[in-house]
């Protein structure tokens, strides 16, 4: 896959993207979520 034979490598390559996209989705979904928030003031 992706020109890489060893599954242990292409898995890492793909996981890098999946985790970064996961961070984007998480941040977007929680963008205005202040349900469990305590304000500093």
């Amino acid at each position, binding site marked *: 896959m992706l020109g*890489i034979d060893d599954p242990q490598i292409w898995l*890492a390559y793909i996981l890098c993207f999946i*985790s*970064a996209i996961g961070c984007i989705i998480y941040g977007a979904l929680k963008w205005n979520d202040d349900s469990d928030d305590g304000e500093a003031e």
Partner: protein
Amino acid sequence: MVLSTPVLGVIILVYLMVIFYLGWLGYKKTKQTEDYMVAGRQIHPYILALSYGATFISTSAIIGFGGAAGALGMGLLWLAFMNIFVGIFIAFVFFGSRTRRMGLNLNAVTFPELIGRRFQSRFIQGFSGALIGIFMPLYAGIVLIGGARFLESTLNINYDVAVLILTVIVAAYVITGGLIAVMYTDALQGTLMFIGMIFLLVFTYIKMGGVVAAHSALTAMNDLVPDSLVAGGHMGWTSMPAFGSPIWWTLISTLVLGVGIGVVAQPQLAVRFMTVKNDTALNRAVLVGGPFILMMTGVAFTVGALSNAYFYETLGQISVVVAGGNTDLIMPEFINSAMPETFVVLFMLTLLAAAMSTLSSQFHTMGTSIGHDFYREFIKKGELGQTINITKAAIAFTILASVVLAYILPISIIARATAIFFGLCAAAFLPMYSGALFWKRMTKEGAIASLLVGTFSSLFWLAFVHRSEAVPLGISKAIFGVDTILTGTWTVVDPILVATPLAFAVAIIVSLMTKPTPQEHLDTCFKK
């Protein structure tokens, strides 16, 4: 890296002027201790994310670890994955929100203070502060060398002058502007790094005919791995090393686990969770932080490995050979020969920004560790007074220590300093930091025991067992007459794999054997 154009000089000058402006802004906004230590707990999520990422990623992460990928191959992408998943997601979502809230509840302004107050122990705070003050200069020393080497080669100035210039510039805005100045400048530097690395990735793939074509070219080179590396377990740049081989152990234990997990317990990063006013800011920062780290380590490791295919195609040699055996030169060599000249200029700035953003946070953390945690809270028992002045003096002192270390340490130790510091932090701080946040039953005695066991077992393993440090240090040789007191696979197992589990075990056993923390104090710590 010889590139001496007036254009570069002008660009660097403009860059430094903006840095000074941001430093001045930090100085203007700093009115109380809390501003100086935790940026008034009012930092914007975007600035938090970039500041965290830019501090996390130094020049050595791009050049040093990128070069390591040039030699060892794409297996390092597991570290990139850990950097994103553990270093950003787990760190922000699980550690971040609890750290922020507890820091506020306990009115803590540094990482050692947070832990010290959670366990009601000045010893923990003082010892942690001293540990950071003593060992962080090692880590700061190598970042300083990286930045100064860059200035030396690009501006054609003397290395000693370069060290001095870099130190004075960074020290000036850290000492006067505190954490606000550090984080504002980090955000600018992080933005520059992001742009530089995107260009690097895109240019590299275009140059090599696309993603799949580039990877395939590298895969086709499996039989070109030098015999010395094959003997160590290297099976090609798009394959993992042979399971259990020395290279596999170095890759997995030192790089992927040591650096990948160690990051959670980094004091200069953990303190940033206390700089925002609510959890929403932390969640928003995850959105920026994940892609940022992907573009840093993900790109550096991919490009580092792919440089082999490029050099083989153009020069008929693999990267390590082109770089004369010094893996630190793989990335600079690749960038200089494969990238357009305008990009080289941009990338120079990327590297300078990477060095400065990490250095500034190290200076700030070392100073507050000695000035606030060790001197004020431990020696003076919390007595108020000249804290900020002492902290500033401590910043100046630890900077001096870093500069001196940068000169006197053997190069073989310096090259490993990042991994040493990350591993030491993981063993010493991770058990009590996670216990402080997630396990109410953890006691002061358990925390102290884990701190001491983690610190000393990690140092012991470094000095007497782990070959990469034990041999150049020579302590084992001097005392026992042998390079390492254990032999075989043990000598390639990183201290983090031994010391951290040991410290965790001690933390649990001692906590269960001692009196629980009073409920009243726990209520204060975990208050919503």
